[in-house]
């Protein structure tokens, strides 16, 4: 999932002076966007559009990759073989989603290694949600239900993003993401229906801990969103953070009822006049703290990624050396 962080990078200034030719190219580009057209990798695009997309798509890719870590914590401790195979399939999907997205970002002219280096140095962000710990088995279910549920809400509009390679990657991802949400709800539902009182309490506790961070996944309120207006103009972001958040809350309230858990917000209630649920204030200071690097697991997550990359270096080098040796041998033959 997970594209919230696009709103957290510093605002870049656009060049004031442009050549006449560039202005004409940009006019044509804008017209294409206005017609609802798609931009392909080799088409002319404004430098700022390119940068915005590299940042957003790579942050999205990093989130998929880092998102494997909280779930991996439970692979060896899944309660049954069935749940274990489901979890493994889901984690493999996250790796796949990361790869689709890195490929899309690379079409914009940034190499895979550069993208990874930005993650490993802490320069690039990933979704703040993965800096929370998975304390019990119920957390794995709640991640599917709430975190992947919020992700789907965020991602469906991206299948219509103006940058075609990103939109195509998102179509594929959205198709697979639905399994993630449903398996999570199913795991929780089994605990609520057939579980012990302790297991039901576990589901409630996990829901309480993940609710607010899930709402933060939609990014800062529209008024504070740094890139919102420009991204909307360019057809990168089709629906605003606040609208998506509201849609998610409205959908989730009903699901919580079916599951039999409460959501940890005393202000949450249906507002007939608005046709939506009202909800309590979100603690944005927590959001900014976690995005800034000081969440419960930031260091652990990044440390795990850097270690995996460094430990794998000899494998990557060996595979490449082998390939070159084979190629040379073939030429000589």
């Amino acid at each position: 999932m997970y594209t919230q962080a696009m709103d957290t990078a510093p605002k870049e200034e656009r060049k004031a002076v442009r050549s006449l030719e560039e202005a004409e190219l940009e006019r044509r580009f804008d017209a294409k966007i206005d017609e609802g057209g798609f931009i392909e990798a080799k088409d002319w695009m404004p430098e700022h559009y390119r940068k915005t997309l590299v940042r957003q798509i790579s942050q999205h890719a990093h989130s998929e990759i880092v998102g494997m870590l909280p779930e991996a914590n439970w692979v060896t401790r899944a309660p049954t073989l069935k749940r274990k195979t489901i979890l493994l399939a889901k984690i493999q999907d996250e790796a796949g989603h990361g790869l689709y997205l890195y490929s899309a970002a690379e079409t914009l002219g940034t190499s895979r290694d550069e993208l990874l280096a930005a993650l490993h140095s802490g320069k690039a962000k990933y979704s703040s949600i993965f800096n929370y710990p998975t304390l019990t088995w119920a957390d794995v279910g709640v991640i599917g239900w709430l975190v992947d549920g919020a992700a789907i809400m965020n991602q469906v509009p991206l299948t219509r993003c103006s940058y075609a390679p990103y939109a195509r990657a998102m179509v594929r991802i959205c198709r697979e993401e639905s399994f993630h949400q449903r398996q999570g709800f199913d795991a929780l539902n089994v605990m609520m229906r057939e579980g012990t009182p302790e297991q039901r309490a576990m589901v409630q506790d996990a829901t309480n801990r993940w609710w607010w961070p899930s709402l933060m996944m939609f990014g800062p309120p529209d008024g504070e969103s740094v890139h919102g207006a420009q991204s909307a103009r360019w057809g990168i972001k089709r629906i605003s953070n606040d609208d998506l958040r509201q849609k998610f809350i409205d959908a989730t309230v009903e699901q919580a009822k079916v599951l039999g858990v409460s959501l940890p917000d005393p202000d949450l209630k249906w507002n007939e006049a608005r046709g939506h649920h009202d909800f309590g204030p979100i603690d944005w200071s927590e959001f900014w703290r976690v995005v800034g690097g000081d969440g419960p697991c930031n260091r652990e997550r990044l440390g795990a990624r850097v270690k995996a990359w460094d430990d794998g270096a000899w494998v990557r080098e060996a595979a490449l050396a082998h390939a070159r040796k084979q190629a040379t041998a073939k030429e000589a033959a």
Partner: protein
Amino acid sequence: MSRNDTTQEWPLWEVFVRPKAGLDHKHCGSLHAPDAPMALQLAREVYTRRQEGCSIWVVPSSQITASDPGDKDMYFDPMEDKVYRHPTFYVLPEAVDHM
């Protein structure tokens, strides 16, 4: 190894998948792999986790020659006024119109 040294990066491959027997292979994405056998193996893991295909082609991205998007108008517009290349251009007597 420096992290930005792209000579150490595995080459890029384009992946084409045949969804089922009887259909064409269709481009579905790209991936990095050190050589062709690994590219095929990784393509299977990345692009056919749910039986999306029954055959895979991988091609080094550097081996693909593509038309220039800047030449799009010059290249493709000349076909615009050749309506006589389509069967619908010909108005035939009703009795034989379904030939």
